[in-house]
């Protein structure tokens, strides 16, 4: 009687031990998750397979090679309807990048100004900057984009009554026209001359730094730098016969010809997103500057640093550390947000590929994968560099 019960106890105890063993549990849970996910994936994929078979659209990327047949209203790279869907994809990516890079540059500049103004000692300026931020941050971006497009830029006068700046830049209800550079083949010599000029900048900087570290004296090398650039680059440029000319847009008939051109949709999307994001970048900059200990400023004043030098050597390096990571995240957001330009018909990636191409080909899965793939690559690249940068900062601190 006693022995079997003991045995039973031992075996139940073993089982209990097994159940409560954390590694066994974790294996069990993980296997369950894998099977569960696989089950759902199998269900979805089998549905996709049946649906695609019924629609007679086998999965594949072969459609990329076929002719797109539709026109794109604006493209930086050459495009015409006889080109393939692959080219459309490329056009979309380039347009997205053009828009986002423009927004990134200008919203960062404007954002820094707004952030600094918010900290102004002048109450009027600080309040204006504050309400600028509050107003533009709290209205949905899409509403702002549509507003700028429909209410502001589409209501501009026609080409004949365009707003002109110095007779070089023209803004009207079709878009924005600006002088565009053309390079003659001789321009290559200027480029070649520029390479040693740029190299000499680095060399000068390094040797000057080394000298400063050794002796503690600062050697002003800016004059030498200026001389090199002016003599080498400009000299070569002039000697080779000024091979760069600007094509200025001119009014011909009912429209401007020649020169550079961006459509109203781009101008509107750019304006709206630059203002919208300058508000959030302004807040980031303000927070970064405020994060600096007051003592730093006082110490700099105490040892007699002039204001500009304080800003350059004390404030900016420390603020940059706090500002850059969130700022780069905002840039990432801008790249993603630029897809909102689809609402006003700017031909960026989502618009030309996810809307037009998808409607024409019906290849939902392939196109969604390709579009999302682009954004993922962009994000992962940027966040990879961000992580590297963060690591470098942390190492310097620790």
């Amino acid at each position: 009687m006693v022995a079997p019960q003991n045995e039973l106890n031992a075996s139940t105890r073993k089982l209990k031990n097994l159940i409560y063993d954390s590694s066994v549990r974790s294996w069990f849970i993980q296997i369950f998750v894998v099977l569960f996910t696989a089950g759902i994936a199998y269900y979805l994929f089998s549905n996709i397979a049946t649906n695609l078979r019924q629609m007679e659209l086998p999965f594949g990327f072969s459609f990329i090679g076929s002719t797109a047949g539709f026109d794109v209203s604006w493209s930086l790279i050459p495009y015409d309807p006889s080109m393939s869907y692959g080219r459309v994809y490329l056009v979309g990516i380039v347009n997205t990048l053009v828009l986002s890079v423009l927004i990134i540059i200008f919203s960062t500049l404007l954002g820094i100004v707004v952030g600094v103004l918010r900290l102004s000692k002048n109450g009027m300026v600080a309040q204006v900057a504050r309400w600028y931020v509050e107003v533009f941050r709290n209205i949905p971006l899409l509403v702002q984009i549509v507003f700028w497009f429909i209410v502001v830029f589409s209501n501009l006068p026609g080409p004949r009554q365009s707003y002109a700046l110095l007779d070089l830049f023209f803004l009207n209800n079709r878009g924005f026209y600006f002088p565009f550079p053309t390079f003659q083949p001789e321009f290559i010599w200027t480029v070649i001359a520029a390479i040693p000029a740029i190299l000499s900048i680095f060399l000068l900087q390094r040797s000057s730094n080394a000298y400063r570290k050794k002796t503690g004296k600062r050697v002003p090398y800016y004059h030498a730098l200026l001389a090199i650039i002016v003599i080498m680059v400009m000299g070569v440029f002039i000697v080779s016969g000024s091979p760069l000319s600007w094509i200025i847009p001119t009014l011909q008939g009912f429209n401007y010809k020649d020169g550079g051109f961006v459509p109203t949709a781009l101008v509107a999307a750019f304006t709206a997103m630059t203002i919208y994001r300058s508000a959030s970048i302004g807040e980031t900059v303000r927070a970064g500057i405020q994060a600096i200990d007051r003592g730093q400023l006082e110490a700099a004043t105490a040892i007699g640093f002039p204001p500009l030098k304080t800003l350059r050597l004390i404030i900016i390096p420390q603020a940059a550390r706090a500002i850059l990571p969130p700022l780069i995240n905002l840039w990432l957001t801008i790249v993603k947000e630029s897809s909102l330009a689809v609402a006003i018909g700017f031909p960026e990636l989502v618009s030309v590929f996810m809307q037009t191409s998808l409607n024409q080909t019906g290849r939902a899965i392939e196109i969604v994968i390709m579009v999302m793939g682009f954004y993922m690559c962009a994000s992962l690249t940027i966040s990879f560099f961000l992580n590297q940068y963060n690591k470098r900062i942390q190492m310097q601190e620790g």
Partner: protein
Amino acid sequence: MDNRAAQNTELGKFIPRPSRPPVVTSQGLVGWLRKSFFNGFLNTMLTVTVFTLLYLLIRPFIDWALVNAVWSASDRRQCLAINSDGACWAAVIHWFNNLIYGRYPNELQWRVNLGLSFGLLWILPLNLKKVTSKLQIGATGVILYPILASYIFLGGERSNIHYLLACTGLAYLLIVYIDTLLLYLGSKKSSQVIEPLLEPFLGKKADQVGFFLLLGGLVVLIAIVLQGLELEHVPTGSWGGLFITLIISGFSIVMALPIGIFLALGRRSTMPVLKWFSIATIELVRSVPMITVLFMSVTMMPLFFPNTMDLNKLAQVIIAVCIFSGAYMAETVRGGLQTISRGQFDAAKSIGLGYWHTMFLIILPQALRTMIPNIVTSFISLFKDTTLVSIIGLFDIMLMARNISIDKKWFGLHSEPLVAISFLFFIFCYGMSQYSQNLEKKLNKNR
């Protein structure tokens, strides 16, 4: 020195002269104005210049929006005839109902109000200090409120289970309010009132059983009372306006919380499969724009399901937005979890709590408290981002506003509706952001 000391001893006590009042120009309103607006010549110049610029910028807008505005007219032509320099708010007023309710039938709009006010009623006790079972009320709300609300909004022929669950929602809400009332009157909970009757039969479990008996009784009662009530069917296709914006953003933020908590816990898990699964989900979803997720939900999601299944656009969009905001919420939760010190984990372990107990009793309640401002912030951005559904053709407030300009009577009227909804969004979002900042201050004070 000597003289003064002598004086002091002579009088025995030093009586200081009353101090002079500060210079008028350095305190109060005048002082503040001087200090921040007119301190020095340059600053005064700056103030005056900025003020002038502001005036030049804002004056035309005020003239357009208020001074010259037309508030009542029957169509755009009449608006222009009355005053062509001003805003034609008559269009916005005329379309106001549509901006709020979309194309929901006029005579049934009370149902939207009713459903949304049930939601408000559900949130209200969570803000009362004395109420104790907030987690239960919140969790039940997450589960039962959508069922109740969908029953009210949709109407038409619903299954019996749906009907009963909706009644359960009503009954639970009723009990919560009875309990809250009793609490403030200082007496026991409603379930405790009938507890003594049950105690002889059930012993210790009488409290819980009493609650469920009460709930069950109320459900049956409500189900019988409302039996004859038939709600006309309103398909989701005619939902719209601010109503649908609120539904999508509200539902998604509530669903995002559990999704976010599990993804964040998964990300911190020691189990590699769970960890990498969570990281992959969070990073992939966060790296794509919301509009692509929405496009995916309308173009690709139908392929995921057998084509016999009847999907509706609203459900597809809500699923997409839930996943999207869930991934963002996961990062918010992760931030919250990082504020909890290691000692809390160790202490929980040392008193023998397991993983789930540690998380749900010790860590998450503390982390969630610090996260509330961030959750409000993400709700604000989700609320703004919900306007994107207009791009894929859902009639939210944005698309309704755009549609005014297609209306024959108000043809070409673009700016007024856009300004009106901008104003609406500004009030909503600014209010919420102020609320979240106050919360943050309060939380920091308590620390």
